[in-house]
């Protein structure tokens, strides 16, 4: 290689290296300046107003002497992904009236679409039910998880159409945004309009948890044993037949010992 060409290559490499070094120094100086002189890089604490309201989510704050003595796992932190518009307004813990069953109703919101209970087929109409993945919306053939934590919900469908789509979503979103500005009469009217497609008489506990169940558990993928269990849930019978059910003490060791 001729000497002059070799020199020019060396010069080019030297210049490039010099430029690189200058850039490196400038970046370092910027980083140093930022580190030393800018506002501390503390993440601003989210303001309460921007936090998701308590009722909308199962999410709880991390236990920090958090008054959640029994929270031993992460399940409680999981939330319904792609929550439907109903839950966005009412929250997962939306059932409050029925003292006997409200917690049980709420528990179902994590694995049943609202329409599964709140949409009653008219006479002669036949609805079908399948599990749909919360995240992807795909049909779930095999459940993964336990005790209601499947990341999927039982959704009614007909003519290959899911029936958990909210017909007046835009109105619902609008209502949530501006409800404080409405009069009571306006609120009532809009609420009525939003709930038009919802049946006044939802499917009851005993309609599902019975031998001739409204839901076909076997078709939904439940095992024979679990289907059998679901068709005779004790709590349903208790809620039906008792105002107050006194827990039996015959297996309570302290009582037995005392006797």
């Amino acid at each position, binding site marked *: 290689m001729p000497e002059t060409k070799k020199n020019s290559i060396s010069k080019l490499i030297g210049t490039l290296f010099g430029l690189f070094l200058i850039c490196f120094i400038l970046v370092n100086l910027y980083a140093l300046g930022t580190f030393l002189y800018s506002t501390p890089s503390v993440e601003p604490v989210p303001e309460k107003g921007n936090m998701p309201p308590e009722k909308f989510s199962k999410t709880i704050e991390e236990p920090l002497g958090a008054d959640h003595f029994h929270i031993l796992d992460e399940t409680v932190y999981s939330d319904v992904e792609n929550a439907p518009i109903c839950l966005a307004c009412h929250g997962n813990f939306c059932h409050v009236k029925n003292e006997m069953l409200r917690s049980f109703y709420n528990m179902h919101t994590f694995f049943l679409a609202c329409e599964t209970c709140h949409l009653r087929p008219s006479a002669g109409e036949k609805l079908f039910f399948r599990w749909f993945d919360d995240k992807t919306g795909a049909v779930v053939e095999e459940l993964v998880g336990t005790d209601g934590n499947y990341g999927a919900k039982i959704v009614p469908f007909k003519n290959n159409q899911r029936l958990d789509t909210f017909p007046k979503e835009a109105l619902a979103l609008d209502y949530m945004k501006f409800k404080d500005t409405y009069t009571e009469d306006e609120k009532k009217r809009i609420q009525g309009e939003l709930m038009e497609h919802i049946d006044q008489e939802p499917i009851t506990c005993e309609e599902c948890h019975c031998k001739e169940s409204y839901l076909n558990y076997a078709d939904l993928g439940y095992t024979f044993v679990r289907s059998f269990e679901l068709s005779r849930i004790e*709590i349903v019978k208790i809620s039906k037949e008792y105002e107050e059910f006194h827990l039996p003490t015959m297996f309570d060791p302290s009582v037995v010992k005392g006797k």
Partner: protein
Amino acid sequence: MKSRTNIMGLAIILVTLAVCPLTAPHLMAADVENCDLCHKYSGLGRIDESGKKHLFYVNDSLFQQSVHGKVRCKECHSEIEKYPHTNTKKVDCATVCHLIDPSTGENFSHATMIEKYELSVHGTKDAEGNLKEHAEDLAACIYCHENRIYQPVTGLAQKDQGVAQEILDRCLGCHNEEQWARTFYNHFTHRLHQRRTSRRMVELCVSCHEDTERMARHGLTVTGTFHDTFHWQGIKYGDPNAPNCITCHAPVGYFSHQIMPKNDARSAIHRDNLVRTCANLDGLQTCHPSATPSFAQGKIHPADFKIGVFEFKMKGLDRLRKITRGEMKPFQEVRAQQPAPEELTPLDYYQGLILQLIKYFYLMLIGGLISFMILHQVLDYFATRREMKEGGMH
């Protein structure tokens, strides 16, 4: 035929009773009442009238592995006798349960602990036994404690998690019941761990002690400025020996449930006890073995002017939020955010001035030093290149 059926039925009942957990209380599963039937669902919960969310979920398999895993639900939730569980009272941790305390042979209870706690600065009652003012602000048991899963260790040196079978075998040499021995092993070695990291400990304490309104109700100033101290820096950067709140407020010889006010002679931070607390000579690690009275008088929770500095920082964060949201331009009203000099005593003012000067001096020194170093390196690089060129070294 009928009598045969009856005999079979009787036999089944007898066999069932024979193997029934009631005959061996230490083997008893925690959930003999089958609470898990409902409480296994993580969504079991409701919002009460005040808008507070209540979750009633208990993971039974994890509960069995927890420190309360051998306690039946009803031993703590003794009020629950019917469904729905209306009008239930909060669990009283002083309740006597079926567990036998091996040290006394008597039924176990946290009552002794609670009695001590009640006499401490955090207790809800005063010396005469009357309820303190704003007692609702004071932390009850479950504010600090949750039901932990056992974390046994395999050895004392490394404290690796798990059960060392050879050690458990030593226990089983004398104690025939394996489940009992295992539980005892778990319990004992679990307590070798520090319950929570120093960072979590500080977070727990400041969750109350940084609450300005709550502290004001009790005539206290917030301890937020602990985050400005060298001790916190140690915790922040993961120094396992860095002291947390308990290290100083309940060192060896004191008890975390009996923290006393600092003007009480029984307090670890009473001025007469401070040297010993700072030295911590009896602890697993000594902290300041050569501590002197004047050293111990230093303020760990900087007060006065430093509180102003802390508040100023918080205002800075607030400004940052406003700037991010476009509600304020950078540097707008910055001067108006400065602490008013007339609010400060002359001593605080000059103390603050000196602190600021020191801060700026070091900022300039560090920035200048590193900048000059880099400049020097750059010039040196070019000088070397020039020399190489002139010297004909290519």
